[in-house]
């Protein structure tokens, strides 16, 4: 008797559990208000964008904006795929280039008619259609510590050719003790430290776009067909070899992002190969010295521009019923004073919109903004490469060259083979 009772009770409990689990996944009643969802990958602006979303929700009756952030070490692409498979595709999401566009094109709405399109040069366009809202301008050159350079008697304005760099690096290397530096350059190329992108993505971008007009993609177009411009690449390889030779070897072969940026912030290196996104890190590390950007001048001829690009774009989910409200949110970000305040003052980004008059606080961001106003800069096109080309193909090649720096011909050979393999990827 007793056994039967407990059996019945346990079965009952089990069924209860099964049914509660089942009922959890029932959709909630559709709210009257529009609930917009955004999924983005810049961890460093999480608080700023949450704040702006709350402000926007309060100011816009009938719309509630929710932002979810996953990035840094997180696998944003994987998470977005999981969301789409689960039928929870956000209204606004992020892509990082043509590779992302090709994956998500079924979900990407046409934004050509939006009012902010005329206000920017960096909107993502495919076949003449605007498909992405530029999140920010990012960019880089070779950042220098002005104090160390002036102590060594080097004028940063003179650094416009490879020969000038060679001379400057040699001078710095000969005065290491007196300047208190470990090495002239903080450069990173290691797969192990997760820093392949500095060399194999950002530095290689000099070869794709350096010295050409801002939207000239001829070199990378050729590469996508499997062809390397050998004369040009030979000059580039010599420049890379120079950077490797005068780099702090431990940071180059092993270092993490923190090692690289930390060494520059402590005045242990005079140059840093990083973009303006290090501004907040440098502030955190208490940097007080003056910083500027010199161009990556790898050609035999003079180069004076910096490399500017939009690293990512917001896309509107075309399959969402809230697409119109999502477009309105992006337009407000680009056109209202609140939106400008959020992008520049709260998130510390350089907006890609010309009508924004606010100035960012970081020294490198200011240098980029000045360069942008002056013009004559170069485009960054690694986003046009097939997915995984940077990490899985070029990354190991650059790492290997950093290990065997004397072997220039081998490096050029490896790259020739890798580029020849691009069309098949």
């Amino acid at each position, binding site marked *: 008797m007793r056994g039967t009772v407990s059996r019945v009770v346990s*079965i009952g409990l089990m069924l209860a559990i099964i049914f509660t689990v089942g009922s959890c996944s029932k959709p909630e009643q559709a709210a009257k208000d529009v609930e917009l969802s955004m999924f983005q990958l810049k961890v460093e602006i999480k608080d700023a964008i949450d704040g702006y979303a709350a402000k926007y929700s309060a100011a816009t009756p009938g719309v509630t904006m929710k932002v979810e952030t996953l990035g840094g070490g997180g696998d944003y692409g994987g998470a977005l795929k999981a969301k789409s498979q689960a039928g929870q595709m956000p209204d606004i999401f992020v892509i990082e280039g043509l590779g992302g566009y090709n994956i998500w094109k079924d979900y990407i709405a046409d934004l050509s008619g939006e009012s902010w399109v005329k206000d920017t040069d960096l909107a993502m366009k495919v076949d003449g259609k605007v498909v992405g809202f530029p999140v920010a301008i990012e960019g880089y050159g070779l950042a220098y510590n002005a104090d160390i350079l002036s102590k060594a008697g080097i004028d940063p304005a003179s650094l416009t050719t490879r020969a000038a760099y060679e001379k400057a690096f040699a001078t710095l290397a000969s005065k290491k003790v007196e300047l208190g530096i470990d090495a002239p350059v903080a450069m990173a190329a*290691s797969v*192990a430290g997760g820093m392949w992108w500095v060399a194999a993505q950002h530095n290689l971008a000099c070869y794709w776009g350096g010295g050409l007009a801002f939207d000239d993609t001829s070199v990378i177009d050729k590469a996508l067909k499997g062809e390397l411009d050998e004369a040009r690449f030979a000059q580039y390889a010599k420049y890379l070899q120079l950077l490797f030779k005068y780099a702090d070897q431990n940071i180059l*072969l092993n270092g993490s992002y923190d090692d690289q940026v930390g060494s520059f912030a402590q005045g242990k290196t005079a140059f840093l190969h990083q973009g303006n996104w290090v501004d907040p890190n440098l502030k955190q590390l208490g940097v007080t010295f003056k910083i500027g950007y010199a161009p990556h001048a790898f050609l035999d001829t003079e180069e004076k521009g910096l490399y500017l690009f939009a690293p990512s774009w917001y896309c509107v989910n075309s399959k969402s019923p809230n697409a119109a409200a999502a477009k309105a949110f992006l337009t407000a970000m680009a056109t209202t004073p609140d939106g400008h305040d959020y992008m520049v003052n709260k998130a510390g980004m350089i907006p890609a919109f010309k009508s924004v008059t606010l100035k960012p606080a970081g020294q490198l961001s200011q240098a980029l903004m000045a360069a942008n106003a002056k013009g004559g800069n170069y485009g960054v096109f690694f986003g046009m490469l097939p*997915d995984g080309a940077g990490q*899985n193909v070029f990354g*190991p090649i650059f790492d290997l060259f950093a290990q065997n720096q004397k072997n220039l011909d081998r490096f050029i050979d490896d790259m020739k*083979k890798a580029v020849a393999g691009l069309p098949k990827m």
Partner: protein
Amino acid sequence: MKRNRAVNILFTFPCVFAFTMIILIPFFYGLFYSMTDWNGVSEDIHFIGFKNFRYLFSSPDFLYSFLITIGYTAINIVLVNVVSFMLSLIVTSRIRFRNFYRAGFFIPYLIGGIVLGYIWQFIFNNALTAIGDSLSIQALQVSFLSKPGTVIWIMSVVNTWQYAGYIMLIYVASIQSIPASLMEAAAVDGANYITRVFKILIPMMANAFTISLFLTLTTSFKQFDMNLTLTNGGPATRFMEMPVKASQLLAMNIFSTATANRMAEAQAKAVVLFVALVVVALIQVSMNKKKEVEM
């Protein structure tokens, strides 16, 4: 009896349900996707047969990962089992504080692979190189993690440090289940300690070896988390005239293929990993089983 059967079914249902939903169905989906050109999102999926598999066996990075995984597994099986067997002998002897040692050796197993990878990365990249610099020992000045030749060994050392305590417990349990009379009889007959270990202890523990070898084999073959945080696949090395990542084990190779949106190719690699693992594990278990004795 009929009622009992209903109860049986009800009680196994949650387990069978979960197993079907989480293991079985995804497994067959996976087999299907490995023969398509799926990118993870597109609804436009084409069946391409064994093209992915043919591509795999001609791509140097995958072949290298496969070989290096076999090497890593072989090193691990020997290292982990030798170390943990010796530890188990120590903590079952009359040594003082043996319970303290048991707990101590086991603790590394409780640290997650991610954290552990970062800790050891710091030790190899920063601590050891700093010691090398201050004492001017040249061998230590360049991190072991940045030498393509040593990196797999270093990973095995770290894995042994983590895993030996766990395997040790299996050996300890097995040693304690052997009747003391057997060892005493051998001692009376004049067998010394070494002889007793090799002639009595080890043959009596054969089932413990089966399970320990199986565990070390499968965990090494599937190693991922520590691989990702300790070495991230680096440094680069050259294989079949192509630059590849020197410490990228199979699981990580699959991961980086998948995160590059080459889902079908990654799935094909996962199928290869599955088949290899099943074959190797079956051979190992059947060979070990032959050596087991009934008590």
